[in-house]
């Protein structure tokens, strides 16, 4: 066996070293495209799904409780929170107060949705505390402070598409005029960048600020956002919330997304799964065909090797080495191409509806899975035809029949 490996390796290296470089280049190019086909579309779809899921999680968590139809607020929000937090499977829950407002910095004014949050509770609920690109997140005592979305700040990605507040920076003071006419001045404590508009065009202040501005008592909320331990059992947790005596409408994040978006996500997910498997099968077939043709072109050589006494085992090992080398180069070239494409589409994201952009998501697991799949395919594709030819009659192999 060791001799087979040694001879197989010598035969493979000399074939690679002195083989036709143009053919090698073409094979590697095709293999790189196969690899791209395996990973690129899922990355784009992943970006789209991530954007949609991300959007829903910021606004709705896993489950959201909203005011009933004839109420602007959830009354007794603390009471509702208490009930919700007692339900097994619920990990975090918080109340929020949203308000419409305009924000002014020097001569620039933009309209925005201001979310009143309880900063310490948001750590377990949303990503808000983790997307601060400049400055800091709000603290428990941040009453005269505001976090503004990156797209409201000149120079940030996407800010050129919308009205922005010009050169506002961390430490600047902005005036916020709420929908009831109350004006408050806040110091910008941080800039948040969630990479999608529905977060980056908003602003965050302390819950108490909205309460004060609108003169609300302590038990009001425009939403109660809930996180659960296992997102697969959202429907069961929702049932438990209702069973606990919460009378306001309860929605899972999935239900909250409108029917069109839900269907779109399901369809996209289906396309993604189908595309992955089709790409995998097409990729495997292509690798097999490329290597098979390569082996057939060397049928005479295999016959000669056998005739002089080289074992079929080392011939098979040699082709396994060769095809693994081809595929490794193909994967390497594919990875370079993939990251270049990822970089390009991150800098120039695909945009639709004018303001929704899809930034592709690098899917590490899928990339590793694809590399392994291609390497395994390469071994099969290399050994199978070589094994077949090595079992053929020596003279027929030499004559190329």
């Amino acid at each position, binding site marked *: 066996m060791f*001799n087979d490996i*040694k*001879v197989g390796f*010598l*035969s493979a290296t*000399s*074939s690679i*070293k*002195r*083989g036709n470089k143009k053919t090698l280049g073409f094979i590697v190019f095709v293999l790189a495209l196969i690899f791209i086909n395996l990973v690129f579309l899922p990355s784009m779809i992943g970006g789209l799904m991530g954007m949609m899921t991300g959007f829903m999680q910021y606004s709705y968590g896993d489950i959201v409780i909203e005011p009933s139809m004839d109420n602007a607020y959830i009354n007794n929000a603390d009471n509702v929170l208490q009930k919700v937090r007692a339900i097994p499977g619920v990990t975090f829950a918080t109340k929020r107060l949203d308000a419409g407002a305009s924000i002014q910095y020097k001569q620039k004014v933009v309209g925005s949705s201001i979310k009143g949050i309880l900063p310490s509770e948001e750590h377990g609920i949303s990503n808000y505390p983790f997307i601060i690109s400049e400055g800091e997140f709000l603290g428990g005592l941040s009453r005269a402070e505001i976090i503004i979305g990156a797209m409201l700040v000149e120079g940030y990605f996407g800010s050129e598409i919308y009205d922005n507040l010009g050169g506002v920076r961390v430490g600047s003071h902005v005036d916020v005029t709420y929908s009831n006419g109350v004006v408050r001045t806040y110091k910008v404590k941080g800039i948040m960048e969630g990479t999608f508009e529905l977060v980056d065009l908003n602003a965050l202040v302390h819950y108490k600020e909205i309460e004060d501005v609108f003169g609300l008592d302590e038990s009001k909320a425009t939403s109660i956002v809930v996180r659960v331990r296992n997102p697969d059992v959202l429907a069961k947790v929702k049932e438990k919330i209702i069973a606990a005596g919460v009378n306001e409408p309860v929605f899972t994040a999935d239900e909250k997304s409108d029917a069109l978006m839900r269907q779109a996500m399901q369809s996209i997910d289906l396309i993604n799964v189908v595309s992955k498997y089709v790409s995998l099968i097409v990729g495997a077939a292509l690798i097999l065909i490329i290597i098979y043709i390569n082996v057939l072109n060397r049928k005479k*050589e295999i016959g*000669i*090797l*056998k*005739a*002089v*006494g*080289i*074992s*079929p085992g*080392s011939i098979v090992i040699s082709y396994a080495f060769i095809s693994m080398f081809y595929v490794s180069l193909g994967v390497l070239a594919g990875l370079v191409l993939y990251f270049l494409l990822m970089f390009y589409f991150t800098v120039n994201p695909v945009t639709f509806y004018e303001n929704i952009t899809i930034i592709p998501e690098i899917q590490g697991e899928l990339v590793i899975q694809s590399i392994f799949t291609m390497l395994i395919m390469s071994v099969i594709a290399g050994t199978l035809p070589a094994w077949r030819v090595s079992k053929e009659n*020596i*003279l027929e192999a*030499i004559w190329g029949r």
Partner: protein
Amino acid sequence: MKDKPMIKIKNMKRYYKTGSVIVKALNGVSFEIKQGEFIAIMGASGSGKTTMLRILGLLDKPTKGEYTINNLNVVDLPEEEKGYYRLTQLGYVFQDYALINEMSAEENVYILSLMEGKSKQESISTSKEALEKVGLGDKLNRVPDQLSGGEKQRVAVARAIAKKPKILFADEPCANLDTHTSEQVLEVLRNLNKNFRQTIVMVTHEPWHTKYVSRIIKLKDGLIVSDKKLRK
């Protein structure tokens, strides 16, 4: 030892079926070969000489008949063992050189020693020695495309003799060579036979090649028509 037959062929037949016609390439051939002989198998085209050599070289199987080397029935050896026997005991020089184009002269030769289980260093030195023996010591790293026809054939001879085979088979080794180059190749074979008592069986159709050999077996229509020992 010299008088003891090394190869024994008894009533060897090889029939091919082409469509509905049966071609009798060998039709009952018997002879013996002793160690140290240099034999030329001659005959017209279609006489069965190449078929005979392929069977002797274990590249083909007879339809009927016995074939033993040192009393070992090599016809019925399993394919894997035949391969190993070819590797360790026999050398074969093909008419069209049959070199691996992507390997250097040295690699074409030392791959066999490597297969035999020798170390790379030992294999390289054996290969070098064999290539020097055929006068190609200065062209070790040339690939077949960088060699002339005669040089290629000498690499093929070096590959066959590097492992010091019991018997060396050569199938029209000068078929594609000019007279001068043919003489060089035949000289190499004669030296091997003379200096190392290498048993050689060579197929040829050129009468002037017989001046290098010690015995001539002539075939016609798949049968031996003459078997003549020459005084050398």
